[in-house]
């Protein structure tokens, strides 16, 4: 999908500060880090979950385990075509039963990815609770899903696209908004 980049809405410093604030909010809402685990949605949710974990460690001085969730086999659009294959996998380095899971993704849009992610988690066990943390909430939900922790709310039109770039994957660190080119 090609798009015309319009503006940078978060730079590296703003992204880091947003993650730090979310870390404080997670610790406060959870009253500590007991039973807490982080699960990033492939692909950009995974490095974001690691960063959130590191920020929480700096606040609380305790490690919070972090895993990765691949939702490919839980999608609701099997026959739609997409770009070149990207193989990623689920890494669940802990037992999810009775845990409080913070699900982490880069952008929250229709909510369909989160819906699929919830189903994946349920197939691994029965957590005590699942909370949702996203770096950017751009609105336009198609399902009754809302985030618990948000880095930045960005009102968008449906013709726009939000691109989160993460150093580990994209080489740069920024959030940009663009217009989809027909």
């Amino acid at each position, binding site marked *: 999908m090609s798009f015309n980049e319009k503006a940078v809405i978060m730079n590296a410093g703003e992204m880091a500060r947003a993650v730090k604030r979310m870390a404080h909010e997670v610790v406060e809402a959870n009253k500590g880090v007991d039973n807490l685990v982080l699960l990033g949605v492939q692909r950009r949710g995974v490095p974001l979950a690691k960063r959130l974990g590191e920020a929480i460690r700096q606040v609380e001085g305790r490690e919070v385990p972090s895993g990765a969730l*691949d939702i490919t086999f*839980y999608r609701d659009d*099997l026959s*739609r*075509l997409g770009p070149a294959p990207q*193989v990623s996998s689920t890494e669940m380095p802990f037992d999810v039963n009775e845990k409080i899971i913070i699900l982490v993704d880069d952008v929250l*849009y229709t909510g369909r990815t989160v819906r699929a992610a919830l189903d994946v988690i349920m197939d691994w066990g029965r957590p005590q609770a699942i909370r949702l943390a996203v770096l950017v909430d751009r609105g336009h939900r198609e399902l009754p899903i809302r985030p618990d922790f948000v880095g930045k709310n960005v009102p968008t039109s449906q013709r726009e696209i939000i691109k989160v770039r993460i150093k580990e994957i994209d080489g740069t660190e920024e959030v940009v908004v663009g217009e989809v080119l027909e």
Partner: protein
Amino acid sequence: MILQRKDVLGLEDLSAEEILGTLDIAGRFRAVFDRPVRSVPIMRGRTVVNFFHEPSTRTRISFELAEKRLSADIVNFSTVDSSFKKGETLRDTAENLAAMKIDMLVIRHSSSGAARYLAEVLKCSVINAGDGAHEHPTQGLLDIMTMRQRLGDLRGRKVTIIGDIAHSRVARSNIWGLTKLGAEVTLCGPPTMVPGALAKLGEHVKVEHDLKRAVADADVLNVLRIQLERGAGKAFPGNREYHRMYGITGDVVRGLKPEAFIMHPGPMNRDVEIASEVADGPRQVILDQVANGVAVRMALIYLLSGGDPGALAGGAQ
């Protein structure tokens, strides 16, 4: 898209990229088996028909499990309890199935080319689960997956296939797949079962009738089943003679490279093509093959249904 095709009829048709892409996805499905819930919902509402026109236990169960673990709706039928007994033709049976709106047909048939014939007639996807002496692509893929788990890249690796190569669809699918991935294949067995002309199948295919020489520098031995039920017994004097000359015994295994391993597509004729000592020994990977079989079948069914893991990267928002 990893597979841009309607059907999978044989490994002869697939490119190296298609084979490797399918095996990558199969690896991801294998990871699903280790979870408490061993199925994923991606094929919900799709219908797959397993049409077995020849006895099969392992392949049929493996396909069934693969389909169930993808949450597809499945229908099984075999010739034993179908209208074939009433004289209906293959095409009529298949067209009746298609009229009932199925998404995929898995076919096992005793005639070479049966799968291709149905693929041309039907609009739905067709997967060949073994046709006569032609191909058995899912067996080929699971064999290659098992080899790659142990050896990694197969380029330059030496695979020796032992048995009735001339009548074996497993051998043919192995040969096509392995040579596309750059492996060197040696075919071994009595000359009645391994005609020298088989070496013409590829630049990196050779025929060696002496077992000792055929396995000396092999990384893998793929030991085929002697198909006694197909009259294989006519090609050699007797089971004991076959075992003595081509059976994989403890002595043969002790002469192999230390890291070489033994595969067998099953079901085994113990103490004919493979000694019990070897079949139960530490060098065989037969149960890995069985587990990988379900995963490669899941991958093929998923990919032929339009599954595209790339959609994740682009459309996740």
